[in-house]
């Protein structure tokens, strides 16, 4: 056992690091604030320029086939690049969904001409893609979506609403899952398209989150025309297409996105204990909780190393990294909540200038509930572990072999 790269991996990592040092600023909270201070337009411009360099240097589409402009390498190499990229202040955000989920779906289902037209520009960051699946009444149960597409000559007319679309406001194209046959069973009446987000009738509105910010959008479709040529997969075959897209999502999520145990250790050195005797870090009750956080955070990090090992050995990775999101979202909430309560009355202050560590824990407290929901709720993820990993039987399904229009849909 060791944590070393193979010679090839080490060589690749060195190349990646060289590229990043040349093209990115080092990560630093000061830099990040500067970054934040960029206008959306400026940030997007910088991001596109960065993505272009990545493509030129062969660090975009690392696992994609060469004929798609990729590098045809095993997934371990894109993980290595991401590890290195994470150590820099690299603006890769706007492309993760498009290149991670949407374009691979286009590659899998579109004809060569379409691929020639779209894959290159996406890879070079010239065009950004978003994913249009979820709806207000179709969250955990995406297949119950209602956005209607009706055939009209060689076009389809789309009406409906999507939600939780990241980057819709700056995306050029999107892949869109629609219902084309309400008389068919739920999963059988769906069809997938791609469309130009600037098409007439497409309206993007930001979602105001409970945490204050707006990282997602609602997208409204009013008589939007989509040529049948922009269909991905068969009419009524949309669910199969969507599964290909969603398969990639599960890999994407799971990283810890807020303060973790090292941050609260730093805080606990500066806060008094609840008894007033010594620092919080010396409080035995805190220390026992801390130990549990350490064990889970390290456990998840190490589980990812096990996954990487399988990939590095050219083997099929186990399901161990599926534990990530269930652990991280709840741990971030627990740590944020514990930190707030340790600050006592002062913990209610949500001001970067006044609250310890730039109010990172207050932000975590307000953001973590979203993490428990985004990309599959805790409950859905546990169902997935139980059914796909442990092989337990599905829950009773009442929506099989019933025409969608006849299914109860509630509120």
């Amino acid at each position, binding site marked *: 056992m060791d944590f070393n790269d193979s010679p090839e991996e080490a060589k690749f990592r060195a190349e990646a690091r060289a590229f990043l040092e040349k093209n990115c600023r080092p990560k630093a909270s000061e830099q990040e604030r500067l970054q934040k201070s960029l206008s959306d337009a400026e940030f997007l411009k910088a991001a596109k320029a960065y993505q272009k360099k990545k493509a030129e240097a062969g660090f975009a589409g690392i696992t994609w086939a060469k004929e798609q402009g990729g590098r045809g390498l095993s997934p371990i190499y894109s993980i290595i690049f991401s590890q290195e990229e994470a150590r820099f202040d690299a603006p890769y955000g706007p492309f993760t969904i498009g290149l991670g989920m949407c374009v691979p779906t286009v590659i899998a289902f579109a004809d060569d001409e379409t691929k020639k037209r779209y894959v290159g520009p996406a890879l070079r960051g010239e065009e950004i893609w978003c994913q249009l699946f979820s709806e*207000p*009444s179709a*969250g*955990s*149960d995406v297949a*119950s979506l209602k956005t209607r597409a009706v055939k009209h000559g060689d076009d389809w007319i789309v009406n409906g609403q999507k*939600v*939780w679309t990241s980057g819709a406001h700056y995306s050029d194209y999107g892949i869109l899952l629609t219902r084309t046959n309400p008389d068919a069973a*739920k999963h059988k009446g769906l069809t997938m398209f791609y469309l130009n987000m600037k098409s007439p009738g497409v309206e993007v509105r930001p*979602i*105001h*989150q*409970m*945490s*204050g910010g707006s990282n997602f959008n609602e997208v409204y479709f009013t008589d939007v025309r989509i040529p049948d040529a922009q269909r991905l997969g068969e009419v009524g075959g949309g669910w199969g297409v969507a599964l290909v897209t969603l398969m990639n999502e599960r890999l994407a999520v799971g990283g810890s996105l807020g303060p973790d145990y090292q941050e609260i250790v730093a805080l606990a050195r*500066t*806060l*008094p*204990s*609840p*008894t*007033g005797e010594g620092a*919080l870090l010396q409080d035995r*009750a805190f220390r026992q909780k801390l130990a549990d956080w350490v064990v889970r955070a390290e456990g998840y990090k190490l589980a990812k190393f096990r996954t990487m090992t399988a990939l590095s050995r050219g083997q099929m990775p186990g399901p161990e990294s599926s534990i990530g999101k269930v652990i991280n979202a709840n741990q971030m*909430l627990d740590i944020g*909540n514990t930190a*707030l*309560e*340790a*600050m*006592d*009355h*002062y*913990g*209610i*202050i*949500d*001001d970067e200038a*006044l609250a*310890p560590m730039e109010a990172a824990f*207050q932000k975590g*407290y*307000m953001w973590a*509930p*979203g993490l*428990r*929901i*985004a990309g599959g*709720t805790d*409950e859905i993820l*546990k169902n997935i572990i139980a059914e796909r990993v442990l092989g337990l039987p599905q*829950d009773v*399904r*009442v*929506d099989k072999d019933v025409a969608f229009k006849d*299914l*109860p*849909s*509630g*509120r």
Partner: protein
Amino acid sequence: MNFDFSDEQKALKDEARKFLSEKCGPKVVRAVLDSPERGYDPDLWRAVAELGWLGAAVPEEFGGSGLGRLELCVLAEEVGRAVAPLPFSSSLYFFAEALMLAGSEAQKQTLLPGVASGAVIGCLATSEGPGALNAKKIEARFDGAVLNGAKIPVTDGGIATHAVVLAREAAGLSLVLVALDQPGVTRETLKTLDPTRGHAKLSFANAKAERLGAAGQGWELTEAVLDRAAVLLAFEQVGGSQACLEMATDFAKNRYAFSRPIGSFQAIKHKLADMYVAIEVARSNAYYGAWALSTEAAELPFAAAAARAAASDAYYYCAKENVQTHGGMGFTWEVDCHLFYRRAKLLAVQAGAPAVWKEKLVQRLEARNAA
């Protein structure tokens, strides 16, 4: 066995709920949320004053209705359920209780009638920085006539007319009474997790002040006030928890996934059952606190700590799982889940965080066992 509120008290509770559901709906709460500088809703404040709520626990001789603490408890539960944008707890549980506990006849005569009428809005100012309140670390100074120092955060400090401040003097810690509309006092509004309740930093530069209670008794008095407030806060927390459970239950019955109400899935059922259990534990402990508070029983310190610990944990659990039950919608600004999620945290940390009260509970258990 008579361990429940009377029919009259339950009737008062029903009236309060009816009134608040009409006059203090989400629109009213969000009006303050969206313009935090307001700090509270003055019209609603006047209205509850007219209903006599503010004087419920104030003796008639001081302009109150003299109803009693049990009546204040049932009102507190409804105020909590409505997430009311009011300085109700600051003015009644903290300020008025401190006055009634330690105030001189003159101080009570001067201020309690105003509390009961709503003209006086009081608050308690103890915290000076991050971490549990610590007698050794209080730096605000009182020289017998004027007060110097700063308190942060002070809930409702931006709108209060008066504050009871924990400060140090030669004799040790004392509580002092300060009128806030004077040149020696500056207030900075604070950005907090619960903008539906105003918060400020209060700075005192030779502010005129007078002692509340005996010199050097400030810490003991603060503890005694916090015990009383803990019981009343627990009722607000139980009310908020109950509202979360009802909101989540209603949603779970009507929201469908996989063509079934999500409330028919065991994951949601058991989540809501766990909320129910937490609330009943908190409610029962709160009732015990109410009994101890209303009878001035020797069990009050133990009962208050138990009520407070149970209610803080219950509200946090119910508020976060109410968001979770609502899924993506629950994470949006438009849905009301976050109003409770924000208030739950304010009520958990003001007057001492759960860990502090759990430690107090064990200390008081040891004292009880030793007795």
